[in-house]
């Protein structure tokens, strides 16, 4: 357990990067949110209709930003070999990376998401749900993204490949999260969509570290 905590602290400090990691992700998020009215037209009704969905899509895309260097960094300087030989199982290393991605990147994005949604015209009552859904969904995005980064380790054109591999896997949480937000905005029950979103994130936390560990082992030998 202490090995996991040490790993987590290390990954967190790397992902946080003295504020750089989190702020860049939030900046990217703000840029997408700013481009949407330019693309869609600034009529309030039209923006209000797409606000929840856009907030969600931008969240998924912002998660992809920091994935390419997640394993490359350690692979290049030999740290990953040491981690593979160390006391903690590789699945714990993968889980620590995923958790650090979520803490350093997903939490600030979850704070930015309601702001963006409100600026795009979503009703103020939706803000807490947007924050909660971004928090829970961000966990799933971070872990699945970390697994994608492990799979693409050692490949050419890593960044785009990770996106191509991971975005189809992002489809269920996008469907459920945006579905919950749309249900809320129409006065329907948002519980089932949110529950399915949480189920996806928890399944990602439970299962993807093992897939990522298998991929890392494959890339190392």
């Amino acid at each position, binding site marked *: 357990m202490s090995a996991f905590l040490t790993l987590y602290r290390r990954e967190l400090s790397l992902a946080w990067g003295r504020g750089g990691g989190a702020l860049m992700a939030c900046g990217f998020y703000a840029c997408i949110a700013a481009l949407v009215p330019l693309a869609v037209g600034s009529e309030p009704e039209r923006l209000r209709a797409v606000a929840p969905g856009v907030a969600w899509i931008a969240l998924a895309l912002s998660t992809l930003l920091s994935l390419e260097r997640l394993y490359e960094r350690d692979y290049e300087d030999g740290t990953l070999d040491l981690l593979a030989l160390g006391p903690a199982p590789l699945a714990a290393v993968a889980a620590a990376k995923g958790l650090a991605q979520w803490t350093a990147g997903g939490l600030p994005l979850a704070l930015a998401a309601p702001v963006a949604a409100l600026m795009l015209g979503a009703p103020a009552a939706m803000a807490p749900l947007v924050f909660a859904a971004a928090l829970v969904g961000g966990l799933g995005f971070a872990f699945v993204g970390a*697994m994608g980064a492990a*799979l*693409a*380790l*050692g*490949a*050419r*054109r*890593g960044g785009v*490949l990770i996106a*191509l*591999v991971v*975005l*189809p*896997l992002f*489809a*269920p949480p996008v469907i459920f999260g945006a579905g919950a937000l749309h249900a809320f905005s129409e006065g329907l029950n948002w519980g089932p969509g949110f529950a399915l979103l949480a189920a996806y994130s928890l399944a990602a936390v439970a299962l*993807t570290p093992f*897939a990522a560990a*298998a*991929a890392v082992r*494959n*890339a190392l030998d």
Partner: protein
Amino acid sequence: MVFGLANPQRFLSVTRHAPAILGGLAAILFAVGVWLSFTAPEDYQQGDTVRIMFVHVPAAWLSLMVYAVLGGASFFALVFRHVLADVAARAAAPLGAAFTALALVTGSLWGRPMWGTWWEWDARLTSVLVLFLFYLGYMALRASIDDEAKAGRAASVLALVGLINLPIVKFSVDWWNTLHQPTSVLRLDGPTMTADLLAPLLVMAGAYTTLFLALWITAIHGEIRARRAAALQLKAAGRA
């Protein structure tokens, strides 16, 4: 049986004539299926357009079946290190992607006269499109890693993770309100189609399946021979 065929030489000798036999069978089934498709009665609502179903539905069935084959082969490759399973998975992926693209295109052609639109973002169409993207992601990952063995293992992990999408595609028409036709053939209560429309559908499904098997085995043969050729080249270069 699966492990009996793990030896490439044995596989080649056992399936030497399989592509020709299966190809001939597929040709016969296609001939019968097309004839049955054109002589089947008109649908009372859709008229003659219903005949696209005999091309569209088997393609969609194959797209799911080939992904299941891909997942199974990846499982054998990853867990049992079955020598030919990796080759089989690699061979199956482009075929599956082609069947999925065929299902999407023929479905679009059918949707235009029936629903008045070329495309609709309902649950079934979106999940099949996502399935197509899964195939593309698999092929991209395979192609991007230079070491053949490493690429195979990473792609196997990805294929297994993607298996979650299969039940979502199959049951999407039941779980969500969609424009697409709900399940009418593989149901617990039995098919809701009459025999005169079900027969051409099943014959065409058989034709598509034998065609897939013929092409798949041909591709596996090709891959085995390509690897042998590469090994011989290396050996010759070593001697020179």
